[in-house]
């Protein structure tokens, strides 16, 4: 570990997927093997008790990073190192998924869903102790211990997301990876869940890796934000610094494009074009075909990562220049 304050250090993480046609087609049609680079040279750290958010549009690789961090995918290159937890073993990470309708087994009772990680890791000796722990986490997330006997379909979307959070907390992890935890919820329910997550962070000292496409939600939750585009982090900084002074043209356009209830009809530069396919990313800087500041150099040379003036880093040849 580079710093004892870090809970997680991710270094030069790359993940490629083999998306080639089946073998026979390749032989008959003389097609080469094709690889999709979902995540490329991603480096970041998450401080203990902090919240780092990864934002970006669909297909930018943010969910792949979440799955790599929790070990659901193996990295192709690079390293993921967790700091030691209270007991000295590497910190344990749990995950909260986007869709609470799909991530809870409809045929299991809520009590069994939450007890599964406790039983799996052998964290409690007896059934009574397990049930007591289930009741405890249900109370922590604002549900009633009696809910353990009910099935997921008896709950609303927001309550189901509370159950997912309870399941994630059951094994007393110190690190939570939250992949779009409120995207499937209505705004009033989203506010309940975000408030709950903030409270849990304070009470249990949790560290979050928060994945979202919603910049307003991210601003509410995160201490630091990393903006991803086509598998790479293009800018990373403290939340307030990023919002006050975005350096990368993509971040600036993203901030201008999101509709804001409090400031409607502000003059906005619309971002032209659409994100390119990660199967054949543009040469040079991946953002250059959509970038208003792009020059001939951007199409030739991939930008290196440079430090931002007030901390953080940015990958752009002309970062900070006016649009």
């Amino acid at each position: 570990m580079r710093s004892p304050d870090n809970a997680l250090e991710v270094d030069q993480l790359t993940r490629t997927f083999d998306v080639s046609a089946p073998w026979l087609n390749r032989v008959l049609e003389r097609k080469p093997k094709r690889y999709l680079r979902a995540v490329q040279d991603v480096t970041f750290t998450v401080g203990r008790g902090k919240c780092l958010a990864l934002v970006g549009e669909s297909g930018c690789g943010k969910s792949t990073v979440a799955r790599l961090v929790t070990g659901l995918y193996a990295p192709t290159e690079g390293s993921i190192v967790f700091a030691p937890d209270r007991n000295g073993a590497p910190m344990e990470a749990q995950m909260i998924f986007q869709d609470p309708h799909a991530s809870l087994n409809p045929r299991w009772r809520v009590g069994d869903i939450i007890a599964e990680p406790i039983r799996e890791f052998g964290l409690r000796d007896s059934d009574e102790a397990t049930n007591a722990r289930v009741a405890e986490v249900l109370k922590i997330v604002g549900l009633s211990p009696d809910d353990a006997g009910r099935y997921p379909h008896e709950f609303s979307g927001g309550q189901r997301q509370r159950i997912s959070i309870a399941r994630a907390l059951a094994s007393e992890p110190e690190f939570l990876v939250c992949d779009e935890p409120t995207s499937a919820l209505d705004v009033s329910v989203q506010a309940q869940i975000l408030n709950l997550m903030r409270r849990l962070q304070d009470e249990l000292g949790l560290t979050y890796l928060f994945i979202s496409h919603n910049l307003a939600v991210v601003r509410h939750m995160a201490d630091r934000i990393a903006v991803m585009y086509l598998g790479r982090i293009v800018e990373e900084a403290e939340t307030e610094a990023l919002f006050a002074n975005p350096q990368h043209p993509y971040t600036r356009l993203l901030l201008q494009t999101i509709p804001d209830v409090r400031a409607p009809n502000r003059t906005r530069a619309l971002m032209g074009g659409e994100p390119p396919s990660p199967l054949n990313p543009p040469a040079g800087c991946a953002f250059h075909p959509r970038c208003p500041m792009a020059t001939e150099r951007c199409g030739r040379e991939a930008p290196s990562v440079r430090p931002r003036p007030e901390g953080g880093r940015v990958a752009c040849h002309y970062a900070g220049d006016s649009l």
Partner: protein
Amino acid sequence: MTKALDVRDLSVEFPTRHGVLNALSDVSLTVNQGEILGVVGESGAGKSMTGMSVLGLLEPPGRISGGEIRIAGERTDNLSEKEMAKVRGRLVGAIFQDPLTSLNPLFSVGQQLVETIRLHTDLDRVGGRRRAVELLKQVGIPGAEERIDHYPHQFSGGMRQRVVIALALAGNPKLIIADEPTTALDVSIQAQITALLKTLCREHGAGVMLVTHDMGVIAETADRVAVMYAGRVVEIGPVDEVVNRPQHPYTRGLMGSIPALGARVERLAQIDGAMPRLNAIPPGCAFNPRCPDAGPRCRELRPSLVPAGAGSAACLIHDGGVA
């Protein structure tokens, strides 16, 4: 001037084995020509149901049990299925959430456009095709002459939604129902589509009923907004009035629960609980169990829309007080 849409006291019910459920109760709203009316609410509030009733696409056993619908002055709620089929496309066009399912994958975009154009105008094949290219240009599809022969899967999500908009405009309708038209799209594309919707509605003089759960999109796009809760309109008024000076406690709660881009707050305002199910709507005002301002009258009387602020709201605060 005749209104593009005039809905009066519309009620929709679903007879079920456990009794009749009222999905919509006394919904009244109007859309002027060239105006965008936003309809906002949480899942199950009845906003899509209102759009579907106007389109005559209620799924049986759902049926209109009261009130009337006039599109461009023509009464449409009492038409037969056959007559309604002629109204759709000519008087009212529709844009749905998922552009992939609104297009037929087996026909080229041109075939689908020409079919719709010829159904509603007396153009021949050549004229229809010319008009189709014109429409594709209007919605901003580059290389319209070539793209017209492509199939839906060859378009990206944003481009596909543009095709759907072209399709909705093909019969020169007076009214467009846009049901969550940008929900499936990324933010940068979302802004392009809402901007397009806005200019096209002005140019064609068509009224748009924009149904969405995203208050940000409404604030950016709509002229007026109707807020729905549990099958009723609870507040309707000019967009910046409703956003900045909400008159109904539900709207106020909804606004407070949206994380702002401008400033960070410690805790989001939250409305506790969830919207009641259709079979368990409480007596009196449907919002009273969650309302911070509720008084004894709220549990007995069902409020109707009365003038409040610059618009109107269905709350007893504005109609004789809560006590």
